[in-house]
């Protein structure tokens, strides 16, 4: 057998390599200047992200390390989301770093960059082990970041909780991966797709091992995505960790989980999707989790009095909506997952950005303390209102088009193939819980606008914080009113899975 040296094609990994080095620079810069850099280190990280984005844009499509590292449409699309999430998270942490973590700014920003490198690596990897490594590199910095307020009991609790749950879920995932390897003899996802299908055809039915593997992997990734019943860590971690980190968790780490899910299931296990493959099919099981996510997230969010916990539950629910597109598994569904995540990036980072600004000023995250805010800080209130309405899905904001797209993919599948009638249930539950979601989002709006007394707080904000809000608003409006370019881009995502768009 000919042994061929794999083609490294290192330049494909250039954005990751650059960002990794830049993170080291950020770390050392803060140390070398004896922690006197002030906000400069934050701006330094922002510049690094922008440069990475630029390098990413010139790198383009391609692959490296033989078949391990793919720069395909899904990788490119999600890398943009990761960079965006990191950018907005860092831009909204200027207040918090100035007040509470003066002496560890380098670590704070550097760890965010490391986590971003992990996400980007994950999005490109096409092989189970590197995918797993990417996921670990994503989450381990986040454990530290969640516990960054050392003196705050809630923050430490958040760190520990996230660490225990994260380690446990990684173990489940690795266990599942080991079964997949045992079944297919390979960790390469494309090869695995073929091998498992061959095994299935040869032995007629693979049996219980595959069921076990599917369940373990879904559980492992379910923890990362916070799909119920694997969601219990979310509210405490969101409440305790620094607000920009909660925002980063809710967008960046969620998008990473989505990519991992898409890679493993829509690529490696795509043959075992439909009901004809029962009991090995993963489609219905995931659909069930999506339903649970929408119900649990939206119902429990109603009772929250802390806005970070509320947004935590809302992010669980939003993951449920995104999973509808994933479960639909047609070319529309994959594109809708991308677009939904994109719209969610702007709305959710924007909302968290406002929460962070408000918290920096007042130290409170209670929804009731937003009372009367529209009278004293009208810009902030209008922005938060628009972000929340986009999360509900009110047109013409981007969040509406995202929901529309996701539901469209589900209805397309259900109306074209009668054995997927259960997708209608998914849509139905999605719609009814969307009405629930209006209630708790509107509760914040009600506090800001309907109170008779003006708020005691007058919140002004710094330039980086302002940029978060402006970017969020532009995104929410632009991609609601003129989404065509991004929709085109998103409709390439299915190509990564061998599905021809449209």
């Amino acid at each position, binding site marked *: 057998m000919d042994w061929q040296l794999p083609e490294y094609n290192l330049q494909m990994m250039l954005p990751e390599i650059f960002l990794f080095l830049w993170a080291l620079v950020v770390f050392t810069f803060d140390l070398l200047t004896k922690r006197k850099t002030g906000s400069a280190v934050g701006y330094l990280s922002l510049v690094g992200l922008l440069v990475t984005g630029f390098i990413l844009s010139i790198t383009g499509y391609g692959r490296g390390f033989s078949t391990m590292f793919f720069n395909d449409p899904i990788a490119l699309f999600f890398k943009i989301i990761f960079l965006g999430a990191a950018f907005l998270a860092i831009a909204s942490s200027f207040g918090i770093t100035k007040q509470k973590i003066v002496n560890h700014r380098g670590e704070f920003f550097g760890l965010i960059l490391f986590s971003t490198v992990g996400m980007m690596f994950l999005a490109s990897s096409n092989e189970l082990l590197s995918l797993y490594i990417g996921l670990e590199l994503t989450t381990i910095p986040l454990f530290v970041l969640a516990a960054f307020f050392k003196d705050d009991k809630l923050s430490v609790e958040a760190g520990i909780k996230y660490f225990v749950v994260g380690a446990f879920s990684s173990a489940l995932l690795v266990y599942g991966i080991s079964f997949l390897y045992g079944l297919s003899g390979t960790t390469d996802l494309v090869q695995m797709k073929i091998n498992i299908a061959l095994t299935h055809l040869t032995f007629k039915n693979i049996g219980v091992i595959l069921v076990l593997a599917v369940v373990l992997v879904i559980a492992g990734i379910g923890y990362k995505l916070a799909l119920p019943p694997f969601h219990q860590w979310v509210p405490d971690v969101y409440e305790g960790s620094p607000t920009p980190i909660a925002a980063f968790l809710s967008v960046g780490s969620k998008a990473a989980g989505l990519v991992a899910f898409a890679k493993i299931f829509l690529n490696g296990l795509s043959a075992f999707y439909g009901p004809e493959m029962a009991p090995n099919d993963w489609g219905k099981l995931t659909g069930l989790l999506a339903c649970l996510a929408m119900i649990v997230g939206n119902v429990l969010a109603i009772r929250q009095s802390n806005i970070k916990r509320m947004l935590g539950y809302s992010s669980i629910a939003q993951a449920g909506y995104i999973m509808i597109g994933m479960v639909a598994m047609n070319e529309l569904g994959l594109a809708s997952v991308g677009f939904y995540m994109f719209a969610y990036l702007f709305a959710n980072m924007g909302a968290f950005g406002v929460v962070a600004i408000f918290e920096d000023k007042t130290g409170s995250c209670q929804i009731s303390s937003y009372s009367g805010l*529209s009278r004293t800080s009208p810009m902030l209130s209008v922005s938060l209102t628009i972000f929340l309405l986009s999360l509900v899905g*009110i*047109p013409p904001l981007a969040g509406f088009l995202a929901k529309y797209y996701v539901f469209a993919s589900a209805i397309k599948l259900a109306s074209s193939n009668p054995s997927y009638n259960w997708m209608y249930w998914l849509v*139905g539950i999605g719609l009814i819980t*969307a*009405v629930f979601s209006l209630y708790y989002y509107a509760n914040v709006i009600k506090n800001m606008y309907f109170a008779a007394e003006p708020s005691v707080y007058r919140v002004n904000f710094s330039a980086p914080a302002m940029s978060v809000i402006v970017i969020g608003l532009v995104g929410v409006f632009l991609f609601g009113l003129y989404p065509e370019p991004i929709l085109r881009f998103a409709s390439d995502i299915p190509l990564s899975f061998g599905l021809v768009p449209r």
Partner: protein
Amino acid sequence: MEFPFLSSVVFVPLAGMVVVMLIPKQNVLAIRWTSVIFSLFPMLVSFWLTWDYFFNHAGSAAMAYVEGPYNWIPSLNIQYYLGVDGISVPMLFLTGLLTTVSLLASFNIENRVKEYFAFFLLLEAGMMGVFVALDFFLFYVFWEVMLVPMYFLIGVWGGPRKEYAAIKFFLYTLFGSLFMLVSILILYFTSEPHTLNMMTLIDICPTMSHSLQMVCFIFFFIAFAIKVPVWPFHTWLPDAHVEAPTAVSVILAGVLLKMGTYAMLRISWPMFPGALRTLSFWIAVLGAIGIIYGALVSMAQKDLKKLVAYSSVSHMGFCMLALAAFSSVTAIAGCMFQMVSHGLITGAMFLLVGVLYDRAHTREIAAFGGLGVKIPVYTGIMVLFSMASLGLPGMSGFVSEFMVFVGSFGALNKVLVAICVLGVVLGATYILRMVQNIFLGEFDLARWGGLTEINLREIISVAPLAVLTIAIGVYPKPLSMLMSATLENLVTLMAR
């Protein structure tokens, strides 16, 4: 290219909103007049459109002043497509007129003036958009956009239970709209090639399977019935009306409720004639229940505004009854007449209730008595609209109710229609009892001695409504000619 009239009635108020937001909030006078001026433009355009449509386009059922279809989001086949015909022109007229009237009536808003007028103009843009959109996605966008300012208008400037009323309105309507969204998506994927163009869908939908038609029809019906509101979906209405500030009640009763019946005529009725035939009896039953129930509940009301609110449920019941009699042009025309005349009459009633409330700070019917002595002009105007509301011949209410009954008597179960006629009698009961309690009888000089007469600004705001009510009542022919070609075409579409 022709001037884009329809886009302008949507986007000029939107531009107005932006301008109003740029004015410093201390400059209350400028804010008020700027918003009135920005609402005058769509009003005048809607008047001109009505005039021009009447003389140049009323002969055919085709869409007039069409803009588009332009590609908006080509990946999803979403288009920007506007047009009007005989059923949307009267609605545009009503919207243009009532918005300006309500803005004039809002000059007594003292609190957070800038936000109020900005939201009001956004509301107008949404309403206008609903009546001109011919693409489903666009229609849905306008339909939803309008909820947000309405939520704020009730929630910020409303009465004591404003928060409850505002969120109830928002939740109910959103709940309904989401059903509409599912239907839209089902239609999109069932149609071949996939389209969201309403005109194309009206052509293809009747060929779909009966069960699919039934599902879509019912989903659309839920969405629109909540808006009308049809019994049993009406419970948001009294709360919203009672808590909303006067001008917002006018818009609610005058325009928002009509959006439900308009959408039925525009969308679900011609698209699903098969399902309509199956369900028409039950729709008529819902209409009849609405008529009788609304009237009976009105009779029991102690609050004047709540009385008018429940009378809306009853009056919109007539529309539903007429819509159930889809085979009769007279009945459908009656429905349109009822929509217009209810918009005028109830809009004016809410204005007048507001006038009284501003002075007396109560709306309790029993608190008043003999006001005819003290404020004769107000009494005269109020009695005029009360008579119109109960269907006195010579006013628009009579014409519309008469047409509804004539049309539906031939097309529907006669016993049912006969029961509905009873609603007119009940209507007379609660209206007359209200007039008697407030304006006749003993005058309480100690309590109401300081009551002032209706002022000029308020008279100016109700005067056009009074003129139109009488004009349509005396000479309804122009309005019916305006709509006749469109309605005949609609009835043929529904008979497929």
